[in-house]
């Protein structure tokens, strides 16, 4: 398994007393999985992702990534992280932005150029390397930020509501492209979303979370095939899973 969490806890001290952001989270992610965390705001889905990325430190339990501590896994450059906003540097070209992690990690110059072109082609931005971020649409900027996370050889892709700020038409297309990209690269993807159709369409495993305290309400293994055309969303199987996710979200919310 690639990611394993056991009784993971995280409490933040605040002025109004400690806040239980994560409570007794148990999670296993296998290599090649596409796992979505879904839940209302405050359920800890982003916090859990940030723990895996070693951007937050759990206060209890154990968490391993590729058999290492989360911190060691980050040092070993095990994952690429895609944020909610593209966050491209305005002073760098698209190619320059994608080269950023490669420069930091000290890849040789020639290899940098090769890798940048390869991932630009992968996200279908092959012609846009010399453009500046402001010359690209929001959807294209987010594709560039995904390319940036793919530029170095991390087996894991962590994505925090990457398409949350985009309109539904662009989001549909990027979802489709992401699935193809996942099938081609064989990466393990952990994906945070608050959209039920998005979670069901993308995932092999849907982790439903509920708030106060943030915890896992249910884990749903998707029986859908790995190759999924967009119209799979009209099949009874898809609708049944979406229904199950919605039910679990309701049940999780009932403890409020």
């Amino acid at each position, binding site marked *: 398994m690639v990611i394993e969490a056991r009784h993971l806890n995280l409490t933040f001290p605040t002025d109004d007393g400690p806040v239980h952001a994560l409570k007794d989270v148990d999670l296993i992610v296998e290599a090649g999985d596409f796992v979505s965390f879904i839940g209302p705001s405050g359920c800890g889905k982003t916090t859990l992702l940030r723990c895996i*990325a070693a951007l937050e430190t759990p206060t209890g339990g154990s968490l391993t990534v590729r058999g290492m501590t989360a911190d060691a896994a*980050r040092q070993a450059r095990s994952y690429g*992280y895609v*944020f*909610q906003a593209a*966050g491209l540097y*305005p002073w760098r070209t698209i190619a320059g932005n994608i080269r950023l992690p490669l420069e*930091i990690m000290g890849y040789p110059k020639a290899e940098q150029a090769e890798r940048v072109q390869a991932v630009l082609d992968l996200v279908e931005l092959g012609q846009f390397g010399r453009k500046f971020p*402001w010359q690209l649409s929001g959807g294209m900027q987010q594709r560039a930020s995904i390319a940036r996370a793919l530029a170095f050889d991390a087996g894991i892709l962590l994505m925090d509501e990457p398409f949350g700020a985009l309109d539904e038409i662009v989001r549909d297309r990027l979802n489709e492209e992401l699935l193809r990209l996942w099938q081609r690269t064989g990466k393990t993807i952990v994906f945070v979303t608050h959209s039920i159709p998005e979670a069901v369409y993308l995932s092999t495993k849907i982790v439903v979370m509920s708030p106060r305290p943030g915890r896992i309400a249910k884990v749903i293994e998707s029986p859908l095939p790995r190759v999924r055309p967009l119209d799979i969303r009209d099949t009874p199987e898809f609708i049944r899973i979406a229904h199950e996710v919605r039910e679990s979200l309701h049940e999780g919310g009932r403890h409020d």
Partner: protein
Amino acid sequence: MNRVLPVLTVLFAILVIWYGAAVILNRAWVLDQAARSGTEVGFGQMLHETMTQERPVLPAPHQVAKGLWDGIVGQKITSKRSLVWHAGVTLSATLAGFALGTAAGLLLAIGIVHNRAMDMSVMPWAIASQTIPILAIAPMVIVVLASLGIKGLLPKALIAAYLSFFPVLVGMVKGLRAPDGMQLDLLRTYSASQGQTLRMLRLPSSVPYLFASLKVGIAAALVGTIVAELPAGATAGLGARLLSGSYYGQTIQIWAALLAAAILAAVLVMLIGAAERATLKRMGFVR
């Protein structure tokens, strides 16, 4: 045209007020002269005489303009009466002090952003340093350094640096902290070092703040240099020109030197503004 008209209107208003003030302030001398020689002056003659005195209380604009013109064009540039030569002396110390002050402000800001102890300790001292009137310490610095045999450009540059490091320090502390949590998190996911974060994110992000600070800093450096030229009988520079003018009651010379300093400051700020526009456009901060 839309931008020129308001400027010209304000300029015209200033000239009107200036001429009016010149008549009022210089009238006493004209009347006094007339009383001594026992003659009467008509209104027209009085107007004329308030604007043609050699040492008026307030010189009229055209007198200052003539003084400025004579100082700039009417002399050989190497002459000690040339305002260009004096401005050049002041400018060299201003630029040297500006460079020193900018470097000091930049280094202190980098230290403050990276070191908690410096964050807690440096800023209060930097603020305190600016509450001391520069007029009080400039003569001491000049005299002490002169007694150590250090004269000329360096003492003036130090005073200029003393005034210009502060805006750079304040602006750059804010600028280096400008990247938001997400941008810093991104570099953490790459396990980037502090140096890499500084070079690739903090410094580029701070450029708009840097230019805003530089504009204030260069004007402060010019003021510092002129103040440093006032004491200890300096003979070169716009400050010395101001001082010798006031010794001998040469009000036209004072005003011409003042105006020369103002023009110099405006040109310096405009040059930085041009560099700012070009750089920010190139870096994609503005379109």
